[in-house]
């Protein structure tokens, strides 16, 4: 938009990250397309990319490495390709966390995001009866979408004493008859060559199962929605200074207000900088792009204004009660800057 030439490298066959499979309406304000379904937002963003002659898109292509001399290697068209960009924006997103429990390798145990892909991208009914582990937004939303797909959700269990996701999402599945059990954990999955059920129990303050509260949940699928980890390999490789920040869900690159890492010319945006809502990730992507263009000399009054707007939007999205942990995380992160 500001004039720089961009190569967009996407591992999947369609760019758009998680938006392409999220059928629910987004929150935020109109500046982040609130009220629109993410699938429609993804299409709109994709149309913008495709109609812009300055953007080249490589799909089915994976960035394999970023080297200290600035060379970026990509697997593209089944070939190992080297490129030498002037600026790099890492927006690799996050990976689903896994959970250790007996029986956790039985077929039928998925990340909730994987089940969402099966359902909403591939049109596969992934299960008949699901136990959802985790009551963050992903656990709640995927439970709702499972219900929409005609799958029974036996329960959503959550180790914390309170629901982590938006309460409107919890209320929505609760009134549809899906129990949300906080302070509950999965003890084990069982079954003969595939999941046939799970044992769950209530836990105490020290996360220990309370004897006598064990319950059997017959189900053919267990979905894990126990959090995300920032996908930071490329930042590590590039030599970006990293910090472990619990509030941001793990190790994240130390970035400044421009979202530039400690390595000149490498920027990060979205969940790779810390797990947050998708609306914030979209704004961060925009902000990193503007800053990269500015640093290349594409300086216009419009760019400065866009930059300020993006920063204001992030402040607004993070200013409420739900933004507390992100603000705390970013505060800690700023302490690592030199």
């Amino acid at each position, binding site marked *: 938009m500001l004039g720089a030439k961009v190569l967009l490298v996407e591992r999947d066959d369609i760019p758009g990250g998680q938006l392409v499979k999220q059928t629910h309406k987004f929150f935020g304000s109109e500046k982040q397309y609130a009220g629109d379904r993410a699938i429609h937002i993804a299409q709109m963003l994709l149309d913008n990319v495709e109609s812009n002659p300055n953007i080249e898109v490589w799909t089915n292509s994976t960035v394999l490495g970023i080297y200290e001399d600035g060379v970026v290697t990509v697997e593209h068209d089944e070939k190992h390709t080297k490129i030498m960009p002037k600026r790099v924006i890492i927006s690799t997103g996050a990976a689903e966390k896994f959970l250790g429990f007996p029986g956790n390798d039985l077929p039928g145990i998925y990340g909730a995001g994987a089940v969402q892909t099966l359902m909403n991208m591939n049109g596969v009914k992934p299960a008949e009866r699901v136990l959802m582990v985790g009551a963050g937004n992903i656990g709640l939303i995927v439970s709702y979408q499972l219900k929409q797909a005609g799958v029974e959700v036996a329960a959503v269990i959550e180790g914390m004493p309170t629901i982590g996701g938006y309460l409107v999402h919890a209320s929505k599945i609760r009134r549809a008859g899906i129990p949300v059990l906080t302070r509950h954990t999965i003890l084990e999955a069982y079954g003969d060559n595939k999941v046939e059920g799970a044992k769950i129990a209530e836990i105490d303050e020290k996360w220990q199962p309370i004897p006598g509260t064990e319950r059997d949940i017959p189900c053919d699928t267990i979905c894990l929605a126990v959090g995300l980890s920032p996908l930071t390999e490329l930042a590590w490789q590039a030599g970006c200074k990293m910090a472990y920040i619990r509030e941001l869900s793990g190790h994240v690159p130390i970035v400044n207000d421009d979202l530039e890492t400690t390595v000149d010319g490498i920027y990060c945006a979205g969940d790779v900088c810390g797990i947050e809502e998708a609306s914030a990730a979209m704004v961060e992507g925009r902000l990193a792009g503007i800053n990269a263009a500015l640093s290349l000399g594409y300086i216009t009054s419009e760019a400065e204004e866009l930059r300020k707007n993006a920063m204001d939007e992030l402040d607004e999205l993070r200013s409420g009660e*739900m933004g507390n942990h992100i603000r705390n995380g970013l505060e800690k992160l700023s302490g690592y800057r030199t």
Partner: protein
Amino acid sequence: MLISDGVPTIEDIIKITPSDERFAQGPVAIVECFQEIPCNPCVKACKRGAIAMPNDINDIPVIDPELCNGCSLCVSLCPGLAIFIVDKTYSKEMALVKLPYEYVPVPEASQYVTVLNRAGEVLGDYEVVKVMSGGKVNMTYTISLTVPQELVMEVRDIKVKE
């Protein structure tokens, strides 16, 4: 409790229930949004300016029942599906409730459906009187159904028989 099981308490509901006088005047929106989240489409949705967020998009929406005429535009525009319309003036015994709906099958007018409360408990079978499509982009249906007066602040979801 809402924060631990997703079900608003009676106290939560009392806080957002309009006065008997307001109910006597006709349909009104009930906004069951109890948590400060960054989200404001309801404010834009209301053409009469009845829904406000005084400080910023993280505010809990405040509805002015005197400005609200129960038009139901906000029902299908709230991303959290947290707004309902209640009309206690429908008839002496029966009240009208409008709720957002995003499942299949979609019921038809005059069909009887199973109605559920906020905890997903079955309250009986009642009649759908109107089904409004949100269109190709919005995709959320607004379902109007008649239920006994005493259930209208309880009914918040439906189950449609295949």
